[in-house]
């Protein structure tokens, strides 16, 4: 049925799902959407409403909030969904984004935001087929060894092919590894900060959303024109060429050349043999197809084919594995692995268990250095001997971290911060804000961005971009601080839409204002900018409630020992920049 109402004001609801009682209800919240548009704005405010002081990340009352934005499913590349939760990894603000088919499925199911609360007594999966929500027993798919296979089964038993999204966890989420991810439609993820762990604690194996509704825009001609403009900008101007061509892994060679690619647990920032794990080499030798998130004409999901022999009689198994810059850093350079096929196999192992690959990579790197320094023995590792580039050991270790057969592996399943506090080696446990670092050691901008960022992610502010600019042209530290602040606010607005950040230069403030106007939402550029600042304040309010204190921010020595793209960093300088940021931000 075509809804009589036009697009956005038709969507003002929040779907509440209660896993404890297996009930659901819908609340009309036009006030929230009116003020915060959607996405991170709405989710942050809902979390502030829902959070009861003292509730732990894995307590049943702790909600998971999934939210899309006013442009989701409406305009090209607005394909993301934000998940807000309390992170079981660092106890702090859990904020993660995923693409795939989720945003479009939610939009066409008629929901913009879902709040999941409670926990089930037995494993369940929840389906949202348009306006109907159902709870189904998932006992038979609990304990499956692969998060990928969960999709295969649910695709068969549930309707809605091609118009649905299936998000699910693997064994890591079930077993409580604190950095478990949620797999979204096989090739996308809510990767960081442990949403999969929260799903596991709630005994929520999977969530399926399928939508078939139609939406009207208030001024169809204006909408058509705007869609056309944005589409043309995306596919014809070159703004998105990087993501379409080699993808993010284009940066492997670039960062290696700039000496900013963390290598062997950040003991170095470039590695010999980099060509083999470059985006160029993956594209030439292994890339077989590209896929898109629903509603995006780019196709940035790079899928590689790994043909692996398993007998002498020319018998092969073929694996399709998606790869990306961060994965090649985490399981490649930072582990001293420069064999591309080994990187693919390691990615595949992590995908099956359902863990955040960046965190897993950093943890394995830390273990390797710990063992080399004699700080842990083969007793703790149950016989495994870690060495750089040793794929076979790493493959087994990934399994053992999830299975947690002894105290040591159980500690590894709680993150590098936890493990290093227990076993030592904190100085070279490369994490900021309790989160294992992404693949950049470019200088002040990066380190500052990760330290102060609301979720300690490179996606908070892309501080490495500030460093790249500083590399080309001397820039004052204050300018770098200002860059981080502006970028954080801009991204907060984009995350209300929820546009893919790869398209951030397409969705300029000007274009966002126009795009909103064409679907009946009036906002000025100034109002959007103010919204960004407001969201920042709200997020910090939340962070504070979750226990974040600048005073407790650890800056491991390793960051100051290894030279970055822009030279050796001094702790003093970073601390000063953090102070400057706090002063300007008033936090």
């Amino acid at each position, binding site marked *: 049925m*075509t809804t009589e109402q036009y697009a956005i004001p038709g969507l003002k609801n929040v779907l509440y799902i209660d896993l404890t009682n297996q009930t659901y209800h819908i609340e009309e919240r036009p006030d929230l959407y009116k003020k915060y548009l959607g996405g991170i704005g709405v989710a942050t405010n809902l979390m502030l409403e829902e959070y009861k002081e003292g509730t732990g990340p894995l307590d049943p009352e702790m909600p998971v909030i999934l939210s899309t934005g006013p442009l989701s499913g409406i305009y090209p590349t607005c394909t993301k969904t934000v998940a807000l939760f309390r992170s079981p990894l660092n106890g702090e603000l859990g904020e993660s984004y995923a693409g795939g088919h989720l945003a*479009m499925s939610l939009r066409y199911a008629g929901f913009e935001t879902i709040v999941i609360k409670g926990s089930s007594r037995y494993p369940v999966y929840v389906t949202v087929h348009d306006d109907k929500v159902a709870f189904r027993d998932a006992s038979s798919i609990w304990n499956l060894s692969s998060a990928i296979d969960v*999709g295969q089964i649910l695709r068969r038993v549930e309707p809605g092919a*091609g118009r649905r999204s299936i998000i699910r966890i693997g064994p890591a989420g079930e077993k409580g590894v604190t950095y478990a991810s949620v797999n979204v439609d096989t090739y996308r993820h809510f990767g960081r900060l442990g949403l999969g762990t929260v799903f596991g604690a709630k005994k929520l194996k999977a969530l399926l959303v399928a939508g078939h509704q139609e*939406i009207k825009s208030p001024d169809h001609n204006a909408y058509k024109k705007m869609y056309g403009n944005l*589409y043309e900008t995306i*596919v014809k101007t070159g703004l998105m060429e990087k993501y379409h061509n080699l993808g993010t892994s284009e940066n492997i060679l670039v960062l290696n050349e700039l000496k900013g690619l963390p290598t062997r647990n950040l003991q170095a920032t470039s590695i010999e043999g980099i060509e083999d794990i470059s985006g160029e080499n993956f594209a030439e030798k292994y890339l077989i*197809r590209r896929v898109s998130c629903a509603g995006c004409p780019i196709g940035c999901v790079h899928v590689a084919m790994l043909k692996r022999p398993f007998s002498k009689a020319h018998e092969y198994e073929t694996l399709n594995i998606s790869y990306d810059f961060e994965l090649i850093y985490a399981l490649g350079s930072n582990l001293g692995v420069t064999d591309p096929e080994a990187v693919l196999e390691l990615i595949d192992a992590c995908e099956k268990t359902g863990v955040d690959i960046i965190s897993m990579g950093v943890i394995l790197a830390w273990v390797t250095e710990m063992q080399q320094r004699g700080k842990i023995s083969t007793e703790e590792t149950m016989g495994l001997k870690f060495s750089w580039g040793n794929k076979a050991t790493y493959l087994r270790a990934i399994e053992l971290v999830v299975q947690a057969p002894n105290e040591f592996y159980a500690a590894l399943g709680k993150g590098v911060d936890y493990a290093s506090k227990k076993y030592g080696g904190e100085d070279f446990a490369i994490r900021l804000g309790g989160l294992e670092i992404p693949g950049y050691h470019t200088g002040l901008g990066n380190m500052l961005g990760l330290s102060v960022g609301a979720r300690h992610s490179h996606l908070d502010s892309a501080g490495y971009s500030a460093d790249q600019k500083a590399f080309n042209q001397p820039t004052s530290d204050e300018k770098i601080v200002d860059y981080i602040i502006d970028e954080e606010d801009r991204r907060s607005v984009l995350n209300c839409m929820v546009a893919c950040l790869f398209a951030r230069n397409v969705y300029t403030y000007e274009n966002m204002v126009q795009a909103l106007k064409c679907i009946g939402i009036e906002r000025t550029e100034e109002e959007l900018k103010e919204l960004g600042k407001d969201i920042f304040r709200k997020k910090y309010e939340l962070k504070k409630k979750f226990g974040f204190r600048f005073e407790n921010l650890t800056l491991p020595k390793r960051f100051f020992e290894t030279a970055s793209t822009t030279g050796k960093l001094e702790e003093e300088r970073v601390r000063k920049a953090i102070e400057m940021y706090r002063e300007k931000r008033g936090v």
Partner: protein
Amino acid sequence: MAKRLKVANPARCIGCYSCMMACARTWYDTISLKNSRINIQTRGGIETPYAMIVCHACVDPPCMRACPLGALTKRKGGGVTLNKEICDGCGNCIEACIVGAIHLDAEKKAVICKHCGVCTKFCPHDVLEMIEVEDSGELKVTDTSPVEDTTSESPTASHKELYGKKEPEVKK
């Protein structure tokens, strides 16, 4: 000169759904995947290639023969033209079309491809193309030159105008 839609390069589909959105936007004035006259479908999630379910523009359309009311008439270039006024939603055409290219909309009217080509304008990967055909719908020989070189060195390879390499001046 009659034209019809053709799925020229199915293996190049990235599943962006831009074509379906364009169809629904153009002919149903809606933002949706529903009531698109073409259907891009998954077969094994996004792990396996997409399927394109598109009207084949039959020379002798079974859907037309199956319609008891004469709501479907032969289109120049193959396929049919629907007279919505006459259609009563009996669904016989849907059964007659083994391709699966027809469905009913909310008002119980058949949704059938017009071969207008708007979807091809929103396909970034040359999956969909408009081709020239005889008025009868029979295929026409239009090209006798060697097939196009699509290797990356070829100056005429597909994508030549897409995702342009030069960064435009960003407006401040």
